[in-house]
Protein backbone atom coordinates (compact mmCIF):
# COMPACT_ATOMS: atom_id res chain seq x y z
CA UNK A 1 0.00 0.00 0.00
CA UNK A 2 1.22 3.51 -0.80
CA UNK A 3 1.97 5.79 2.11
CA UNK A 4 1.58 9.57 1.96
CA UNK A 5 5.05 11.04 2.13
CA UNK A 6 5.92 13.99 4.37
CA UNK A 7 6.49 16.19 1.35
CA UNK A 8 3.09 15.36 -0.09
CA UNK A 9 1.53 16.00 3.30
CA UNK A 10 3.06 19.49 3.42
CA UNK A 11 1.86 20.18 -0.12
CA UNK A 12 -1.68 19.10 0.75
CA UNK A 13 -1.55 21.29 3.87
CA UNK A 14 -0.48 24.34 1.84
CA UNK A 15 -3.22 23.73 -0.75
CA UNK A 16 -5.81 23.31 2.03
CA UNK A 17 -4.63 26.55 3.71
CA UNK A 18 -4.83 28.51 0.43
CA UNK A 19 -8.30 27.11 -0.40
CA UNK A 20 -9.52 27.92 3.15
CA UNK A 21 -8.19 31.49 2.89
CA UNK A 22 -9.97 32.01 -0.44
CA UNK A 23 -13.22 30.56 0.96
CA UNK A 24 -13.05 32.85 4.03
CA UNK A 25 -12.32 35.91 1.87
CA UNK A 26 -15.16 35.13 -0.53
CA UNK A 27 -17.68 34.29 2.19
CA UNK A 28 -17.00 37.51 4.14
CA UNK A 29 -17.01 39.60 0.94
CA UNK A 30 -20.14 38.01 -0.51
CA UNK A 31 -22.03 38.63 2.74
CA UNK A 32 -21.74 42.39 2.23
CA UNK A 33 -24.11 44.57 0.23
CA UNK A 34 -21.92 45.99 -2.56
CA UNK A 35 -24.14 49.06 -2.89
CA UNK A 36 -23.50 50.05 0.73
CA UNK A 37 -19.99 51.39 0.90
CA UNK A 38 -18.93 52.81 4.24
CA UNK A 39 -18.31 56.55 4.06
CA UNK A 40 -14.96 57.71 5.39
CA UNK A 41 -16.67 61.01 6.24
CA UNK A 42 -18.70 59.61 9.13
CA UNK A 43 -17.12 60.92 12.34
CA UNK A 44 -15.36 63.73 10.52
CA UNK A 45 -16.25 67.41 10.14
CA UNK A 46 -18.80 67.82 7.35
CA UNK A 47 -17.37 69.51 4.24
CA UNK A 48 -18.48 73.11 4.31
CA UNK A 49 -20.49 74.65 1.50
CA UNK A 50 -22.04 77.94 0.56
CA UNK A 51 -24.76 77.37 -2.00
CA UNK A 52 -27.53 79.55 -3.39
CA UNK A 53 -31.03 78.81 -2.17
CA UNK A 54 -33.88 78.33 -4.57
CA UNK A 55 -35.96 80.89 -2.67
CA UNK A 56 -33.68 82.81 -0.39
CA UNK A 57 -30.16 84.03 0.34
CA UNK A 58 -27.09 81.77 -0.03
CA UNK A 59 -26.74 79.23 2.73
CA UNK A 60 -23.47 78.25 4.46
CA UNK A 61 -23.31 75.01 6.39
CA UNK A 62 -20.74 76.20 8.93
CA UNK A 63 -23.10 79.05 9.91
CA UNK A 64 -25.54 76.41 11.15
CA UNK A 65 -23.00 75.18 13.75
CA UNK A 66 -24.80 74.57 17.04
CA UNK A 67 -27.77 73.01 15.29
CA UNK A 68 -28.30 69.48 14.00
CA UNK A 69 -28.37 69.58 10.19
CA UNK A 70 -29.96 66.99 7.93
CA UNK A 71 -28.29 67.36 4.53
CA UNK A 72 -30.37 65.60 1.89
CA UNK A 73 -29.14 65.25 -1.70
CA UNK A 74 -32.03 65.01 -4.17
CA UNK A 75 -33.24 65.85 -7.70
CA UNK A 76 -36.64 66.48 -9.25
CA UNK A 77 -36.09 63.59 -11.71
CA UNK A 78 -35.36 61.10 -8.91
CA UNK A 79 -38.43 59.02 -8.07
CA UNK A 80 -36.94 57.64 -4.85
CA UNK A 81 -36.46 61.24 -3.72
CA UNK A 82 -40.20 61.80 -4.20
CA UNK A 83 -40.83 58.75 -1.99
CA UNK A 84 -38.92 60.26 0.93
CA UNK A 85 -40.34 63.75 0.54
CA UNK A 86 -43.10 63.22 3.11
CA UNK A 87 -40.63 61.84 5.67
CA UNK A 88 -38.33 64.86 5.28
CA UNK A 89 -41.25 67.29 5.53
CA UNK A 90 -42.49 65.50 8.63
CA UNK A 91 -39.00 65.70 10.19
CA UNK A 92 -38.77 69.40 9.39
CA UNK A 93 -42.20 70.11 10.92
CA UNK A 94 -41.37 68.03 13.99
CA UNK A 95 -37.90 69.38 14.75
CA UNK A 96 -37.55 72.88 13.27
CA UNK A 97 -38.17 74.43 16.67
CA UNK A 98 -35.73 72.05 18.41
CA UNK A 99 -32.53 73.24 16.74
CA UNK A 100 -32.70 70.99 13.69
CA UNK A 101 -32.38 72.20 10.10
CA UNK A 102 -33.23 70.14 7.07
CA UNK A 103 -31.37 71.26 3.93
CA UNK A 104 -32.21 69.84 0.53
CA UNK A 105 -29.22 69.92 -1.81
CA UNK A 106 -30.42 69.82 -5.38
CA UNK A 107 -28.12 67.64 -7.51
CA UNK A 108 -27.74 67.47 -11.32
CA UNK A 109 -30.97 69.29 -11.97
CA UNK A 110 -32.19 72.52 -13.55
CA UNK A 111 -33.34 75.46 -11.47
CA UNK A 112 -36.69 75.43 -13.28
CA UNK A 113 -37.40 71.73 -12.66
CA UNK A 114 -36.24 71.96 -9.04
CA UNK A 115 -38.39 75.07 -8.37
CA UNK A 116 -41.43 73.44 -10.01
CA UNK A 117 -41.03 70.35 -7.85
CA UNK A 118 -40.52 72.34 -4.64
CA UNK A 119 -43.68 74.35 -5.39
CA UNK A 120 -45.92 71.46 -6.39
CA UNK A 121 -44.71 69.08 -3.67
CA UNK A 122 -44.91 71.82 -1.03
CA UNK A 123 -41.32 71.43 0.18
CA UNK A 124 -41.11 73.73 3.21
CA UNK A 125 -37.45 73.37 4.26
CA UNK A 126 -34.60 75.28 2.59
CA UNK A 127 -33.35 73.92 -0.72
CA UNK A 128 -29.96 74.87 -2.18
CA UNK A 129 -28.50 74.22 -5.63
CA UNK A 130 -25.25 72.32 -6.14
CA UNK A 131 -24.94 73.46 -9.74
CA UNK A 132 -21.39 72.20 -10.34
CA UNK A 133 -21.74 69.03 -8.19
CA UNK A 134 -18.74 70.17 -6.16
CA UNK A 135 -20.58 69.66 -2.87
CA UNK A 136 -21.74 66.23 -4.01
CA UNK A 137 -18.11 65.27 -4.69
CA UNK A 138 -16.98 66.63 -1.33
CA UNK A 139 -19.59 64.42 0.34
CA UNK A 140 -18.56 61.37 -1.65
CA UNK A 141 -22.01 61.06 -3.21
CA UNK A 142 -22.69 57.74 -4.93
CA UNK A 143 -26.27 58.37 -5.95
CA UNK A 144 -29.44 60.00 -4.77
CA UNK A 145 -31.21 60.19 -2.46
CA UNK A 146 -28.44 60.27 0.09
CA UNK A 147 -28.74 61.95 3.48
CA UNK A 148 -26.11 63.04 5.98
CA UNK A 149 -26.83 63.86 9.60
CA UNK A 150 -24.51 66.52 11.00
CA UNK A 151 -24.37 67.07 14.75
CA UNK A 152 -24.14 70.39 16.62
CA UNK A 153 -20.32 70.34 16.45
CA UNK A 154 -20.40 70.00 12.67
CA UNK A 155 -19.44 66.32 12.54
CA UNK A 156 -21.17 63.82 10.29
CA UNK A 157 -22.77 61.19 12.52
CA UNK A 158 -24.49 59.11 9.86
CA UNK A 159 -25.03 58.68 6.16
CA UNK A 160 -28.30 57.20 4.90
CA UNK A 161 -28.29 55.69 1.43
CA UNK A 162 -31.70 55.62 -0.26
CA UNK A 163 -35.00 57.08 0.90
CA UNK A 164 -35.16 58.03 4.57
CA UNK A 165 -37.75 56.57 6.92
CA UNK A 166 -39.51 59.17 9.11
CA UNK A 167 -39.50 57.04 12.26
CA UNK A 168 -35.86 56.02 11.98
CA UNK A 169 -34.78 59.55 11.11
CA UNK A 170 -36.69 60.97 14.09
CA UNK A 171 -35.16 58.52 16.53
CA UNK A 172 -31.69 59.18 15.14
CA UNK A 173 -32.15 62.96 15.41
CA UNK A 174 -33.40 62.54 18.98
CA UNK A 175 -30.27 60.55 19.82
CA UNK A 176 -28.04 63.23 18.30
CA UNK A 177 -29.92 65.96 20.17
CA UNK A 178 -29.61 64.02 23.42
CA UNK A 179 -25.90 63.38 22.87
CA UNK A 180 -25.38 67.09 22.22
CA UNK A 181 -27.25 68.03 25.40
CA UNK A 182 -25.02 65.81 27.60
Amino acid at each position, binding site marked *: MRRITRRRGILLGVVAAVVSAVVVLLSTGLGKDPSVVAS*PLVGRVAPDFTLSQLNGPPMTLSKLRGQVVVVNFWASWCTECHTEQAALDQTWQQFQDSGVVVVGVNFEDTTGDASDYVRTAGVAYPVVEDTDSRTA*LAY*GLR*GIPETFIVDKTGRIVDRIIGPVDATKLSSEINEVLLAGAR
Partner: protein
Amino acid sequence: MNAAAAKARLRTKLPVLMVLLAVLVGAITLAVVAVRGHQAQPSQAQQVQQIAAGLHCPICKDLSVADSPAPLAQQMRAEIAQKLRAGESADEIRASFVAAYGDSVLMSPPRRGLSGAAYFLPAIVILVGVLGAAMLIRRWVRSPETGPADDVEAAPLSATQRRAVHRALARLREEEPA
Protein backbone atom coordinates in the same frame (compact mmCIF):
# COMPACT_ATOMS: atom_id res chain seq x y z
CA MET B 1 27.63 9.89 -30.40
CA ASN B 2 24.77 8.43 -32.42
CA ALA B 3 21.68 10.28 -33.62
CA ALA B 4 19.28 8.48 -31.24
CA ALA B 5 21.33 9.46 -28.19
CA ALA B 6 21.52 13.08 -29.36
CA LYS B 7 17.75 13.07 -29.88
CA ALA B 8 17.19 11.66 -26.38
CA ARG B 9 19.50 14.29 -24.88
CA LEU B 10 17.63 17.06 -26.72
CA ARG B 11 14.32 15.67 -25.45
CA THR B 12 15.51 15.84 -21.85
CA LYS B 13 16.89 19.36 -22.24
CA LEU B 14 13.78 20.70 -24.02
CA PRO B 15 11.87 21.73 -20.84
CA VAL B 16 14.93 23.61 -19.58
CA LEU B 17 15.27 25.39 -22.92
CA MET B 18 11.57 26.31 -22.84
CA VAL B 19 11.88 27.81 -19.36
CA LEU B 20 14.95 29.77 -20.45
CA LEU B 21 13.06 31.04 -23.50
CA ALA B 22 10.13 32.14 -21.32
CA VAL B 23 12.51 34.02 -18.99
CA LEU B 24 14.17 35.67 -21.99
CA VAL B 25 10.83 36.80 -23.45
CA GLY B 26 9.81 38.17 -20.02
CA ALA B 27 13.07 40.06 -19.64
CA ILE B 28 12.75 41.61 -23.12
CA THR B 29 9.15 42.66 -22.36
CA LEU B 30 10.19 44.28 -19.08
CA ALA B 31 13.04 46.09 -20.81
CA VAL B 32 10.66 47.46 -23.48
CA VAL B 33 8.19 48.64 -20.80
CA ALA B 34 11.01 50.23 -18.81
CA VAL B 35 12.30 52.12 -21.86
CA ARG B 36 8.81 53.22 -22.90
CA GLY B 37 8.17 54.55 -19.39
CA HIS B 38 10.61 57.40 -19.97
CA GLN B 39 8.46 59.44 -22.31
CA ALA B 40 8.14 63.16 -22.63
CA GLN B 41 6.21 65.06 -19.93
CA PRO B 42 2.49 64.44 -20.62
CA SER B 43 0.22 67.39 -21.35
CA GLN B 44 -2.32 68.48 -18.74
CA ALA B 45 -5.13 66.81 -20.68
CA GLN B 46 -3.15 63.56 -20.67
CA GLN B 47 -2.50 63.92 -16.94
CA VAL B 48 -6.23 64.45 -16.31
CA GLN B 49 -6.95 61.37 -18.42
CA GLN B 50 -4.35 59.33 -16.51
CA ILE B 51 -5.67 60.29 -13.08
CA ALA B 52 -9.30 59.90 -14.17
CA ALA B 53 -8.53 56.44 -15.56
CA GLY B 54 -7.43 55.39 -12.08
CA LEU B 55 -10.67 56.47 -10.42
CA HIS B 56 -14.04 54.70 -10.36
CA CYS B 57 -17.00 56.75 -11.49
CA PRO B 58 -18.94 56.70 -8.18
CA ILE B 59 -22.40 56.59 -9.74
CA CYS B 60 -21.65 54.16 -12.59
CA LYS B 61 -21.06 50.45 -12.68
CA ASP B 62 -17.52 49.39 -13.62
CA LEU B 63 -16.59 52.57 -15.45
CA SER B 64 -13.66 54.81 -14.76
CA VAL B 65 -14.04 58.57 -14.42
CA ALA B 66 -12.14 58.84 -17.73
CA ASP B 67 -14.63 56.62 -19.57
CA SER B 68 -17.90 57.72 -17.99
CA PRO B 69 -20.17 60.24 -19.70
CA ALA B 70 -22.03 60.88 -16.39
CA PRO B 71 -22.17 64.56 -15.33
CA LEU B 72 -20.59 63.68 -11.97
CA ALA B 73 -17.64 62.06 -13.77
CA GLN B 74 -17.36 65.16 -15.98
CA GLN B 75 -17.25 67.27 -12.84
CA MET B 76 -14.58 64.99 -11.39
CA ARG B 77 -12.47 65.47 -14.53
CA ALA B 78 -12.96 69.25 -14.28
CA GLU B 79 -11.91 69.13 -10.63
CA ILE B 80 -8.81 67.08 -11.46
CA ALA B 81 -7.84 69.65 -14.11
CA GLN B 82 -8.40 72.49 -11.67
CA LYS B 83 -6.33 70.81 -8.97
CA LEU B 84 -3.49 70.16 -11.46
CA ARG B 85 -3.55 73.84 -12.43
CA ALA B 86 -3.36 74.68 -8.72
CA GLY B 87 -0.14 72.65 -8.56
CA GLU B 88 -1.41 69.54 -6.77
CA SER B 89 0.31 66.27 -7.56
CA ALA B 90 -1.50 63.20 -8.90
CA ASP B 91 -1.15 61.51 -5.50
CA GLU B 92 -2.64 64.51 -3.70
CA ILE B 93 -5.57 64.60 -6.12
CA ARG B 94 -6.23 60.88 -5.69
CA ALA B 95 -5.98 61.32 -1.90
CA SER B 96 -8.64 64.06 -1.98
CA PHE B 97 -11.10 61.72 -3.70
CA VAL B 98 -10.19 58.86 -1.34
CA ALA B 99 -10.90 61.21 1.60
CA ALA B 100 -14.50 61.62 0.40
CA TYR B 101 -15.18 58.20 -1.13
CA GLY B 102 -12.79 55.82 0.54
CA ASP B 103 -10.38 53.41 -1.13
CA SER B 104 -13.21 51.97 -3.25
CA VAL B 105 -12.98 55.01 -5.55
CA LEU B 106 -9.61 53.72 -6.78
CA MET B 107 -9.63 51.43 -9.81
CA SER B 108 -6.65 49.51 -8.40
CA PRO B 109 -6.56 48.51 -4.75
CA PRO B 110 -4.12 50.45 -2.53
CA ARG B 111 -0.74 48.83 -1.83
CA ARG B 112 -1.31 48.78 1.94
CA GLY B 113 -3.33 46.64 4.33
CA LEU B 114 -5.21 43.56 3.14
CA SER B 115 -5.53 45.07 -0.36
CA GLY B 116 -1.74 44.93 -0.69
CA ALA B 117 -2.08 41.14 -0.99
CA ALA B 118 -3.41 41.71 -4.52
CA TYR B 119 0.08 42.89 -5.49
CA PHE B 120 2.40 40.42 -3.78
CA LEU B 121 0.26 37.24 -3.90
CA PRO B 122 0.47 36.78 -7.71
CA ALA B 123 4.27 37.19 -7.49
CA ILE B 124 4.43 34.53 -4.75
CA VAL B 125 2.17 32.18 -6.74
CA ILE B 126 4.34 32.65 -9.86
CA LEU B 127 7.53 32.10 -7.82
CA VAL B 128 6.16 28.91 -6.26
CA GLY B 129 5.03 27.73 -9.70
CA VAL B 130 8.44 28.42 -11.24
CA LEU B 131 10.23 26.67 -8.36
CA GLY B 132 7.88 23.68 -8.64
CA ALA B 133 8.39 23.50 -12.39
CA ALA B 134 12.16 23.78 -11.95
CA MET B 135 12.14 20.90 -9.45
CA LEU B 136 10.06 18.73 -11.78
CA ILE B 137 12.30 19.53 -14.73
CA ARG B 138 15.38 18.65 -12.65
CA ARG B 139 13.87 15.27 -11.82
CA TRP B 140 12.94 14.55 -15.43
CA VAL B 141 16.43 15.48 -16.59
CA ARG B 142 18.01 13.20 -13.99
CA SER B 143 15.83 10.18 -14.84
CA PRO B 144 14.57 10.73 -18.39
CA GLU B 145 13.56 7.08 -18.87
CA THR B 146 11.31 6.81 -15.88
CA GLY B 147 9.58 10.19 -16.30
CA PRO B 148 8.33 12.07 -13.26
CA ALA B 149 9.62 10.50 -10.06
CA ASP B 150 7.23 8.68 -7.82
CA ASP B 151 6.49 10.58 -4.64
CA VAL B 152 5.61 7.41 -2.77
CA GLU B 153 8.33 5.95 -0.55
CA ALA B 154 8.94 2.21 -0.81
CA ALA B 155 8.09 0.32 2.36
CA PRO B 156 11.19 -1.18 4.04
CA LEU B 157 11.81 -4.82 3.10
CA SER B 158 11.35 -7.57 5.63
CA ALA B 159 14.19 -10.04 6.30
CA THR B 160 12.41 -12.71 4.17
CA GLN B 161 11.97 -10.31 1.28
CA ARG B 162 15.61 -9.20 1.53
CA ARG B 163 16.74 -12.83 1.37
CA ALA B 164 14.52 -13.44 -1.67
CA VAL B 165 16.08 -10.41 -3.42
CA HIS B 166 19.59 -11.70 -2.67
CA ARG B 167 18.69 -15.12 -4.03
CA ALA B 168 17.28 -13.63 -7.20
CA LEU B 169 20.36 -11.46 -7.73
CA ALA B 170 22.66 -14.47 -7.18
CA ARG B 171 20.62 -16.44 -9.73
CA LEU B 172 20.92 -13.62 -12.25
CA ARG B 173 24.69 -13.47 -11.77
CA GLU B 174 24.97 -17.25 -12.28
CA GLU B 175 22.86 -17.06 -15.48
CA GLU B 176 24.96 -14.21 -16.85
CA PRO B 177 27.23 -15.42 -19.67
CA ALA B 178 30.92 -15.13 -18.78
